[in-house]
């Protein structure tokens, strides 16, 4: 069973610190990194895959630094980058065969493995088509197929569901759940429902740091008492919408149902409600929440 350990990992690009002293221990299970754009998720994932070298700190796999493990570590790894690369003039089959060879998949297994992955991702009928003829969703599925080709013990998926339609997204979630036994699966996304369904552990990233970590229940519990529902007049709703982070807004005849995020009761008559993961996302990543905190501190 693999174990990954990050020891005060930092990545700095000139003056910008993209990842700031992140320390983590990852064992078997699905880990979902949740964060806004620019929070450092992709940089952290790239360092986990050995694409980027940390400015300081180290990443260990089973107690050994991943740079020292070199090819042995890469053999354990499956990676789907955010900007998934492919050769457009290759057919899907040839592309997977090429990557299987580069991933050191034993020759006698390549054919079966490629066919299995094509079936798994629903691309079996398109195996002889050139990738340049594929839709965005099909390319994403091909990306998932290549990541699973070598039966990886550590699977890193950066925005895996981007471009997938709802049916494909559900299929992907089920696929990850069945695949997760005995492996570390790390996925980054800003689609809250993805991690909500499949992640055993959720890691909230903001400005290069892990600001929250726990199971879905634990993470949502951290914002209990900060999610409110309120029925307002349209004008008042407009004012509240500007002032607070709003995770839900429903228009009804003559009134607006609002779901607000605020540390304290935002207005008279607002009722605290059960928080969800989307509320957590907004609480941690929505600029308005900072505005609310400032307001409550009396700075705004």
């Amino acid at each position: 069973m693999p174990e990954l350990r990050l020891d005060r990992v930092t990545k700095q690009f000139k003056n910008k610190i993209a990842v700031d002293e992140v320390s983590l221990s990852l064992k078997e299970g699905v880990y979902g990194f949740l964060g806004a754009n620019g929070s450092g998720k992709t940089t952290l994932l790239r360092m986990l895959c050995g694409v980027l070298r940390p400015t300081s700190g180290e990443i260990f796999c089973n107690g050994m630094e991943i740079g020292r493990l070199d090819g042995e570590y890469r053999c354990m790894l499956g990676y789907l980058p955010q900007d998934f690369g492919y050769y457009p003039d290759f057919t899907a089959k040839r592309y997977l065969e090429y990557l299987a060879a580069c991933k050191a998949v034993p020759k006698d297994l390549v054919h079966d493995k490629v066919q299995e992955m094509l079936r798994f991702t629903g691309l079996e009928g398109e195996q002889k088509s050139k990738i340049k003829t594929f839709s965005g969703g099909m390319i994403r599925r091909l990306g998932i197929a290549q990541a699973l080709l070598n039966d990886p013990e550590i699977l890193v998926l950066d925005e895996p569901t981007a471009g997938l339609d709802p049916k494909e997204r559900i299929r992907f979630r089920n696929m990850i759940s069945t695949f997760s036994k005995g492996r570390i699966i790390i996925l980054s996304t800003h689609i809250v429902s993805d991690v909500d369904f499949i992640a055993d552990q959720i890691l909230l990233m903001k400005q290069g740091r892990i600001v929250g970590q726990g199971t879905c229940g634990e993470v949502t519990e951290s914002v209990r008492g900060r999610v409110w529902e309120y029925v307002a007049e349209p004008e008042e709703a407009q004012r509240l919408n500007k002032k607070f982070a709003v995770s839900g807004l429903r228009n009804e005849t003559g009134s607006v149902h609002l779901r607000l995020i605020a540390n304290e009761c935002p207005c008279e008559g607002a009722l605290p409600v059960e928080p969800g993961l989307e509320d957590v996302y907004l609480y941690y990543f929505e600029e308005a929440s900072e505005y609310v905190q400032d307001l409550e501190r009396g700075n705004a």
Partner: protein
Amino acid sequence: MDSKMKWRFPVDERRKAACMREIRLQVEEKRFRRYPSFAENVWNELRFQSPWHWALQGGVLFAALLVAVWGSRRAGTDSVNIAASSVFIVFAGNICLSGVARLFSWHMAELEQTLYLNLKQMICIRMLEAGVVDSGVLAILTGVGGGCSVSGTGVYFLYMLVPFLWSDVLYLYMLTAFRNLFSGFGQTAAGVICGLLALFPAFLEKAYQPDYVPVWAALSVAGILVLGVELYRIPGKIERGEHVCLN
């Protein structure tokens, strides 16, 4: 025989079968990894090159032969032959390195860097392949062209080596400095610029005179050194990763 039998421990077949079953289960659960040899990696990298790529490499060698034979039949026109061969060797280098440039195209570099045979190793293999074809071109042009030249084969080799080395320096620099630019239009533009530079000595009256051989020798040595630095720099740049992610 009897004395040996006396010291044998009695085997509990039931427990032995249970132990064997446990071992079998552990073995089945264990993941076996295969680490291909260097030769196998080279073969894997080369066999997925397109037929078009191999036709191009073969075409370059064949064209080199044609240029060399054409030059050898034009005895007494050394500077024209050298200029034509110089321009050809520059274009040949450009075509040969297209396999390396391809690794950086279509956002493939980031993914390739995470494979068992990673980007750094792929580049080494493709550079090796480009180097072999390029050296073949150099050998053909020098061997055939130099034999008929009044300058002699050694000096003719120097005249070829300078554009060969310096154009490769520029191509390799472009490969990493301007990221995705060394493909398509960028690659063609680099080839044209190098071709024009290779043609330049032909316009200098004494450039191919014996007096200037030390200059050609100095340029060759400098070219070897700069190319060496460039070849050393590329893997380091890839290892740091920023270049790979921005390709």
